[in-house]
């Protein structure tokens, strides 16, 4: 009798643990993908600084990209805070994260447009490659928020 009760408790605990880790997984994965976005922004900053130093992009082009990166970075940081503020996954969490993540997507689209107008072909390709890495992380988050 005692053994049966113990087994039932263990099974219940395992189910609970599995459900909790599944919930935490989504938030953890979203936080990880957002950290990857921040790392991608960091790489993009270094790249555009390098291109500007080599005079491959103009001051106006660098300013335009910097402004767009600034907005993306702020949106990504806000999304990060939103993820941190939620301890469990439910519909309210999902809705709040979708709202916050819309700013990240809009900022990235704007940045991609700004990157496209860089005149130098080689620089434009390098910028687009850096931005596609950021885009890959946003796709992961979009998948989590579905």
């Amino acid at each position, binding site marked *: 009798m005692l053994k049966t009760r113990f087994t039932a408790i263990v099974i219940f605990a395992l189910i609970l643990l599995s459900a909790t880790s599944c919930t935490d997984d989504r938030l953890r994965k979203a936080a990880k993908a957002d950290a990857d976005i*921040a790392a991608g*922004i*960091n790489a993009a*900053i270094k790249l555009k*600084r390098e291109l500007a130093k080599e005079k491959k992009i103009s*001051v*106006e082009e*660098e*300013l335009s990209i*910097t*402004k767009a*990166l*600034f*907005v993306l*970075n*702020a*949106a990504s*940081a806000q999304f990060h805070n939103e993820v941190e503020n939620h301890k469990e996954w439910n519909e309210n969490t999902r809705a709040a994260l979708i709202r916050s993540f819309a700013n990240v997507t809009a900022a990235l689209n704007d940045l991609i447009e700004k990157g496209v107008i860089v005149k130098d072909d080689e620089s434009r390709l390098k910028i687009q490659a850096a931005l596609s890495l950021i885009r890959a992380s946003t796709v992961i988050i979009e998948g989590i928020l579905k």
Partner: protein
Amino acid sequence: MNYLEFLHRMLGVASASGLPYAQIGQIAVELILKLKAHTGMTTEQLMEQAGITIDENTKWLTEDLVRLEEEIIKIDPPIE
């Protein structure tokens, strides 16, 4: 109320109102440019003195925005 207190409160309102980041960034850059001209300090020194601890990306982007605005002013100075 003096203008410094006015500015402090207005920035609080701007932050709470959801003013777009691009515009908040522009205000920060203009303030840093004015403080640099007045104090002769670098952007990094100003942020350090203000006790601002921000992530590396925001720090670098703010420094870059200030540098680029300065370069544009040098290329195309405003008409006095």
